């Protein structure tokens, strides 16, 4: 760990190891306006897709006993609107913006990133392969190393900027997918995303989410992220961006020790909009602590 409290990522030096995770920070605009971006190395945007998506029917957020289920459905205004309205506003952000990209077909990722190249704003991209591959019967892209490699290759071809491939913990092998992303030319992998989860009301027998299953996040999942960050970072040379379960400064240091280059904070940001500042301060002060026996 860098004793000078600098973290280098994609050739840039940051005074914080914290990235704000996709889907929990919008495009950073709301946080910027309230001065809540202090302490964040970069913001990762809500998923951007080719066409606008209204998202899933409510409820979209269900709190469980020890975590959160979400079923947002990648709601976003689509690439045209993102380019026209959101990115120009995001030019004022006090930190870089990474655009998270999703698609329903392998080609959609490439097309969206080609379009994003029109804007000077993005610092890089995060390619979310945890979504269902509509062309292949709904199987998650990320479940197949071949498809992960193919998407990485296609994105690499059109992107002048670095990109991370955001892997899924739910299907396939995260290790093989990480290697495939690297082989395809990815500049990082994000490990990982929400876990498939569900809540059923036993009295009615009904699922609380309309689509039955959703993405589950919880501070209790941290050990799952640590394991996956460790396994992937041992096997590949590109940086690993950790995502999942962080709500304390210690969690960030643990993920960095496990092999992460940078650490994302998602769910906890919804609880604490100034999480980046608070957690960064915690990290720095822990690093300054005299070594205990």
């Amino acid at each position, binding site marked *: 760990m860098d004793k000078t409290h600098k973290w280098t990522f994609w050739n840039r030096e940051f005074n914080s190891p914290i990235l704000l995770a996709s889907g929990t920070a919008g495009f950073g605009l709301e946080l910027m*306006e309230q001065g809540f971006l202090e302490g964040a190395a970069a913001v990762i945007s*809500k998923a951007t897709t080719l066409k606008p998506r209204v*998202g899933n029917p*409510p409820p979209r957020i269900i709190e469980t006993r*020890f975590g959160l289920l979400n079923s947002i459905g990648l709601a976003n205004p689509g690439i045209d609107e993102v380019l026209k309205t959101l990115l120009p506003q995001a030019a004022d952000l006090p930190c870089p913006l990474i655009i998270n990209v999703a698609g329903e077909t392998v080609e959609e990722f490439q097309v969206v990133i080609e379009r994003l190249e029109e804007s000077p704003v993005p610092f890089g991209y995060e390619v979310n392969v945890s979504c269902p591959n509509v062309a292949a019967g709904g199987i998650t892209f990320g479940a197949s190393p071949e498809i992960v490699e193919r998407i990485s290759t296609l994105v690499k071809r059109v992107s002048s900027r670095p990109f991370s491939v955001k892997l899924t913990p739910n299907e396939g092998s995260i290790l093989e997918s990480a290697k495939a992303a690297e082989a395809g030319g990815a500049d990082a992998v994000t490990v990982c995303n929400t876990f498939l989860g569900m809540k059923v009301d036993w009295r009615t027998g009904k699922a609380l989410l309309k689509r039955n299953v959703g993405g589950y996040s919880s501070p209790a999942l941290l050990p799952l992220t640590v394991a996956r960050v460790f396994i992937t970072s041992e096997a590949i040379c590109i940086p690993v961006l950790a995502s999942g379960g962080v709500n304390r400064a210690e969690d960030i240091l643990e993920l960095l020790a496990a092999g992460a280059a940078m650490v994302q904070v998602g769910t906890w*940001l*919804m609880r604490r909009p100034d999480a980046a500042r608070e957690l960064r301060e915690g990290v720095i002060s822990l690093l300054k602590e005299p070594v205990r026996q």
Partner: protein
Amino acid sequence: MRKAKENRIIDSDAVIIEKKEILPGIHRITFEVPLPFINEVEPGMFIQVEVSHDSFPVTRRPFTISSISGNSIEIIFEIVGRGTEILSETEEGRSLRLLGPLGRGYRLNPGKWLLIGGGLGAAGFPGLAASIDCDLALLGAASRDKLLIIPGCETITITEDGSSGRKGLITDLLETVRWDSFSSVALCGPVPMMKAVIGMMPLPVRVITQVSSEARMGCGWGACEGCSVPKAGGGFLKCCSDGPVFPADSIDWERWEGIH
């Protein structure tokens, strides 16, 4: 944080200066808040209360700002689950982190107002009534134990068990309402109740009706897309930053199921 450039949102620890069970299972908490906070509050806005000092429950809980004074705000809430239970047990003198004021409140149009509230839907009415010309409030509840009081506003009540006012549902009160004597209507309550009320309104009244909505929330400040309310014409509104108060005709009443 939607209208942030105009509207400053504050996240700070607020001391509970009073906590009272005003009706069985219904509590009122008065928080001391800084002046800049007070200055931003408009009737219908809400706060996100961090009920836990711990990891769980993970998210905050949204509550309408019920009334405002020089250095404090009040919320009125019913115990329905874990978060509200923890909140009801937090002692006077302790502080909790509050994010707010959040969202868009009522358009405070001039002229006479009619308030229609079901159960705790009326929680926001005291603050609203203090800022408008409130001519009449119609309040329905399961029983008198669940009926809030709207200071300074003539109130007609109806209860399901007849323990206060007539016995029946709020819609039973609407038959005799002289709609044309009001220039604004505020409506808040459970979605099935609001649907019934909207169904009974003459069309021109819908246009002057503002609805205070609820949705399960993630962030509360517009970032997570969690708090959807179906929008007339398709798509969704964000309860937290497009609302929680909406013109009645901007909502797709057909698709809206509310919270259950």
